[in-house]
């Protein structure tokens, strides 16, 4: 009887000890043992790096994060594993707060996009890009306003004219109130003098909006390029306006009108970037910045961008911060008639 007790206690202590050694993060030995030269100079990373995305698996952010982590691991850019963690919930707040409050050692970073700026501008969330230490931009992609190919109108001007004659008769679907696409539409409307001409119908997701547009529920649809490109290709829709400054990078959409056609000097693109907790040390941020730059230059990432309707374009920390400031200012300006004005929540 006594022996059994000892055995049980020994087992328990053994497990606890084993677990204790491993606490603080996983150190998988599989495969990525080679350390790159840069690591020898500084002590980062020392455990697995986690890219947090505040969305469910299967979306654009998810694909980006996985592409980045694949590129890092396949090219041995960091000496530790890079894993993607999906933290959906509370309207992206769960994921955002997790990185906000994480240990600022660079092992937990956030992959997010311009929606952070837009949601903040319409007051859906009180976290802003300034609460993080920006690392850099990975890709960008314009939003595109598309119309059905079997409609009587085929250019934006025609739609605008019809809408001005009979306000509310032409409807525009937006994927989510407070999304970049929503504010992109507002930008187009403002730049072309078409505010209040169209009727705005909000949906809950890109997929819902696609269904609605294909089913004829709305006349126009604003969407990010990935959500639009396959439908332009199949001929179901015509691209009317691209929210890029110059012509759209994709040959299928380069004939669409652009923001500069409206004398609007900013673009409203969706920009995907990496963010780190605010207190992360300079050298760590720079290391991550360099890694991101290398990732964007890899063939596989370029291929990923091509296949997914985005343009791989690295912006370093300063450039990304500057762009964020501009974008935030623009969004604040545009959100005049959408202010959700959520209650001041206890900052958690």
């Amino acid at each position, binding site marked *: 009887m006594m022996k059994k007790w000892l055995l049980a206690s020994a087992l328990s202590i053994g497990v606890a000890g084993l677990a204790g050694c491993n606490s603080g993060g996983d150190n998988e030995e599989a495969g990525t043992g080679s350390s790159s030269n840069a690591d020898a100079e500084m002590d980062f990373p020392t455990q697995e790096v986690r890219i947090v995305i505040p969305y469910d698996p*299967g979306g654009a952010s998810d694909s980006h994060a996985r592409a980045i982590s694949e590129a890092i691991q396949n090219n041995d850019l960091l000496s530790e594993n890079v894993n993607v963690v999906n933290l959906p919930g509370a309207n992206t707040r769960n994921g955002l707060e997790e990185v906000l409050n994480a240990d600022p050692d660079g092992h937990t970073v956030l992959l997010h996009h311009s929606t952070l700026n837009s949601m903040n501008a319409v007051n859906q969330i009180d976290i802003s890009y300034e609460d993080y230490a920006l690392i850099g931009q990975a890709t960008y992609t314009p939003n595109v306003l598309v119309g059905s190919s079997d409609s009587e109108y085929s250019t934006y001007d025609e739609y605008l004219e019809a809408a001005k004659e009979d306000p509310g008769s032409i409807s525009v679907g937006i994927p989510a109130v407070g999304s970049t696409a929503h504010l992109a539409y507002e930008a187009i409307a403002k730049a072309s003098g078409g505010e209040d001409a169209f009727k705005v119908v909000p949906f809950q997701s890109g997929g819902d909006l696609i269904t*609605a547009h294909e089913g004829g529920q709305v006349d126009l649809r604003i969407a990010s390029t990935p959500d639009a490109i396959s439908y332009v290709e199949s001929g179901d829709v015509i691209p009317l306006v691209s929210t890029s400054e110059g012509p759209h990078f994709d040959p299928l959409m380069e004939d669409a009108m652009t923001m500069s056609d409206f004398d609007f000097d900013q673009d409203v693109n969706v920009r995907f970037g990496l963010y780190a907790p605010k207190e992360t040390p300079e050298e760590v941020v720079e290391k991550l910045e360099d890694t991101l730059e290398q990732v964007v230059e890899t063939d596989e990432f370029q291929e990923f961008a091509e*296949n997914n309707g985005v343009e791989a374009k690295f912006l370093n920390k300063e450039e990304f911060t500057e762009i964020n400031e501009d974008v935030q200012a623009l969004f604040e300006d545009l959100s005049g008639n959408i202010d959700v004005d959520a209650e001041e929540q206890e900052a958690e």
Partner: protein
Amino acid sequence: MDFANFVNTLIDILTSSAIGYIILGTVMGVIFGAIPGLTATLAVVILLPFTYGLDAVTGIATLIGAYIGGISGGVVASILIGMPGTPSSLTTTFDGYPLAKKGLGAQTLAMGSLSNLIGSLISLVLLILIAPQLANFALLFTPFEYTMVMLFAFVMVAGLTGDFYKSLLMSLLGLIIASWGFDPINAVERNPLGFSVLNNGVPAIPAMIGLFVISRVFIEMKDGDSDSIIPKVTASKILPPLKDIKDSSMNFFRSGIIGSMIGILPGIGQSLATFVAYDQAKKASKDPDSFGKGNIQGVVSSETANNAVIGGALIPLLALGIPGDAVSAILLGGLQLQGLQPGPLLFSNQPDFIIGIFVAFLLSVLVMYIFMVTIGARIFPKLLSISKWYLLPIVIVMSVAGSYNIGYRVEDVWIMLIFGIVGYFMYKWSFSPLPLVITLLLGADFEEYLRNGLIQSNGSIAPFFTRPIALLFFIFTVVTVILIMRNNRKKEV
């Protein structure tokens, strides 16, 4: 579709490593489905990172295999221990467990596995033959139609329980609870009670795990003095008796079509399909009162429908690039990462991939069936018949792990716990939790469609009643109410 091409691809897959991955994914799915607390979606999410290094067909096929296996595996625990292995097998417990208690567990399991097979095959046939046309059918459903469909669902489920009026009250309460969290249009926070646990609202899956698995654990604790939950299982047969199969043929067909159709509609999922199929089977039966006490047709309708949803959900995904449910949204991401562009041109641009998926789907269904009737039928009853003292803690831990893994939120575990307690008391006070379940599942979408519809119609409620399909479902709703009230009057006499 080219038949020779199909056969060639079949041979290719069978002779390559792809078949190994398909088997792996499917078996893992079945295991996840069989364990209460773990869901099919979880199996797919876990397998996702492992499929990146594989080629497109193998990778997506593994995930589809896990999905098929997961939904199919749910039947095991539903029948043998009365706890739904996955939320999609909830309606199977109504008749499956009573049948098992009568000693018919093995036959019922065999029938359930056959239903899984047939349901999947029906939806696969539709997928192969008329996917593009069916996808266009899905486009006919606008917020007006969806609102009416869901209204019909709420009323129908309230009618399934014994007490129509109380269930309606419960549904209203459920809709209010479903409104907690963030509103579907403006994403405004709604948390009237102010508990931080409810910041994200009440997600349906943890609540269901609580209501049906955890509460059953409590019930088994209270009632049980016996050592094992599972009733005695006699020798397992591979095929159910031919007569049973013949009798069920209409049910197979009807439930398969219902499941496929509901799967095609983006946003609605297995649970609604099983409720509708169950309800229809009950109405078509000569002995409707035996449903809920051990009528095999209840099991057949439920399991056929939930498998049929899988193929149905793939239709809008492959034909239009629109995900039909949570798992197809993950598959969409998987497709994009493989460099395939989902959208209307997928069928024409990537015919090899499409045929590969069809073949893989078929193989996965066969693997699932073979596994379940050979190994599964022998091992699962043995595993589940371990002493209650060990089984229940395992179920609890798996439920906690499963709930947590949905979104890595501790709140979900608390929700599961709270609803476990709620479910226990509902059982004690002879209350059916079904209306609560259906409203939690569909409530947020119902609100979105209702409000969106009103925006589209500029505030008019006319389209909800004048559009043909919406009107059809409204008529269904009214007819259901009339039938239920007539039934109630009959019972009182």
